[in-house]
């Protein structure tokens, strides 16, 4: 089983216990189309179907054999409790760096590493790497290391947004992650295999560290990025006191904008995939950020200024000019 979800409905009057299996897509489509008000669900054993009525509408849906439904894992013990809102926000920021390419399944997940009172979430698609540290409210008895599919986490973030729980609990029974958010329990298989040793991918030192206002930089990158179409890169030209962001798409046009930047030294030109760069900038929340660079071929690092809980490493596009 890839992902599983159980939802307890409260506002329900149950006349008799039972279990039925219905085709999911169909039931969801029907439910969405029903008028407001009560829905009644009745099993009709003789016909082997379920009668669903709402307002004047009546549906008879053939049921599927219950034994065909996969077994959900047992809930694990001693769950870790995570504050819900920061978790959802971290997922939004980290999961986008996860790969969507099933060829390397390991990279389609988000690594959860927790030790003591610190949780670290990491994702990379091999072009960029996103790392977020979160302080937990209590100290863990044991360490956690689990690679959770990003798809499942995006689902979890949606559930948190809908349900608005204060906390989410996480437990890790055999090769599964189980998240409980209010009345919803989300199961996901874990991705097997060794997640890349991400720490050694982040250089220890950089030649240049340039502090820039986050909003302005994001705005300029989006503006100029419009002319970086069809895989054309967004070029960052650093010169004394100035950063020029430029883009050019052959047969479409070009664009450039200069912003003041506390840069000194030899001019440096480095190019990035505009989407990777913009997503990195979006993931930073502080007013000011720092770009750390060494050369046009070495990765750049984006970090917030004033807190050390987030890092976004991005590989440049090599220009052959």
């Amino acid at each position, binding site marked *: 089983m890839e992902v599983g979800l159980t939802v307890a409905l409260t506002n329900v009057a149950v006349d008799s216990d039972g279990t039925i299996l219905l*085709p999911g897509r169909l039931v969801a489509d029907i439910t969405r189309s029903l008028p407001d008000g009560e829905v009644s669900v009745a099993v009709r054993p003789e016909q082997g179907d379920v009668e669903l009525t709402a307002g004047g509408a009546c549906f008879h849906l053939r049921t*599927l054999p219950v034994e065909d439904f996969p077994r959900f894992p047992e809930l694990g013990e001693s769950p870790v409790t995570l504050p819900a809102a920061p978790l959802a926000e971290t997922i939004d920021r980290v999961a986008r760096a996860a790969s969507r390419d099933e060829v390397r399944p390991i990279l389609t997940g988000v690594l959860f590493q927790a030790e003591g009172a610190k949780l670290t979430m990491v994702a*990379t698609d*091999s*072009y960029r*790497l996103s790392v977020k540290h979160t302080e937990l409210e209590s100290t863990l008895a044991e360490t956690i290391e689990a690679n959770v599919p990003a798809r499942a986490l995006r689902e979890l973030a949606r559930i948190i947004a809908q349900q608005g729980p204060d906390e989410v609990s996480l437990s890790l029974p055999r090769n599964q992650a189980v998240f409980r958010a209010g009345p919803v329990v989300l199961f996901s298989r874990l991705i097997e295999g060794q997640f890349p040793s991400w720490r050694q991918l982040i250089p220890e030192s950089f030649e240049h560290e340039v502090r820039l206002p986050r909003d302005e930089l994001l705005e300029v990158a989006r503006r100029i990025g419009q002319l970086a179409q069809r895989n054309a890169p967004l070029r960052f030209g650093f010169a004394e006191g100035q950063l020029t962001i430029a883009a050019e798409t052959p047969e479409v046009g070009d664009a450039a904008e200069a912003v003041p930047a506390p840069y000194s030294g030899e001019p440096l030109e480095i190019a990035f995939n505009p989407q990777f760069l913009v997503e990195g900038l979006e993931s930073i929340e502080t007013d000011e950020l720092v770009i750390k660079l060494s050369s046009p071929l070495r990765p750049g690092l984006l970090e917030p200024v004033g807190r050390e809980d987030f890092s976004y490493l991005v590989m440049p596009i*090599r220009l052959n000019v």
Partner: protein
Amino acid sequence: MAAWRAWPRIFAHVDMDAFFVSVELLRRPELRGQPVIVATGTDATARGVVMAASYEARRFGVHSALPLAVAHRRCPRAVLLPRNLELYRRASAQVMEVLRRFSDRIEVAGLDEAYLDLSGSPTPKARARQLKRDVRAATGLICSVGLAPNKLLAKIASDLEKPDGLCLLEPDGMLEAVGDRPATLIPGVGERTAERLAGLGIRTVADLAAAEDPALQRALGPRLGHALRERARGHDERPVVTGRERKSESRETTFQADVTDAATLRGTLDELVDSVCRGLAAGARSGRTVTLKIRLRPFRTHTRSKTIDEPTRDPERVRAIARELLAAFELDAPVRLLGVGVSSLAADAQRLGSAPVQGALAIEA
């Protein structure tokens, strides 16, 4: 209003009609109207397969991949021409050059086919007609074009009105067009998947389109089953992949008569290695994995590979590895086929020209 106006994207699949044969006929016009077969050899009594057949020859049941001996039985008066891949490559390059005038989003899917993204074109059907005219004017060759909101349907459409066809196909028309064809028509349904589907009673495209999710998922896993059914319903999200990179460079040869002599094998191996290395040099690429392919009588195919640290296309180096693999192979039967390939390719940095390259983190996986 034409249906395509509502399509968010428009793809064209251009498929050359009887490509190899048509290219041959350009220099042998006297053979027009006759059954013509391009094959791996011209001795109808020896081993060899049909690579292409003219429409005249197809009427006799001759098609590509047919053993030459069978083709000869079916149509003894067909003219056999030996294949000339270099000639077809040149013709293909000319065709692709014409296609590039119609879109810069073009995916070359083979010597004789390509996908074009024509999204945004206000008059795609007129563009397709112009494209067919231009290809014919520039090369003397005829093609069929399929227009559709996705690649899958475009490919199916190009086949519907062959030769010299131009056909529009929407998802709704999929089952009417190919519903009764085997499910293997759907990209992603290979032999093994087809077997599993057959276990569910699913044999045709229409069966697959009508299949229930739970059953498919049990047989094929959660994602694949769903994805294949969506394709059978005419839905396909694959984009046009421009500048497709070659994954390997390989050559193989089928012996006219089975070979047991080690010297003959080595000689053939050396020729194959040289040809592979020339191919790599032409594409400015080198590779790290050398693969030897051997088919023994009656029909057992084996491969052996070795990977080295640094990419190479040096014939000496590749030859040494290929010979080592051959020497280590236990030949317990005569050899029908020998092949050499180099994969794990890397492009030469200095030959990349002005194309920018996205760097990657040093992740081992």
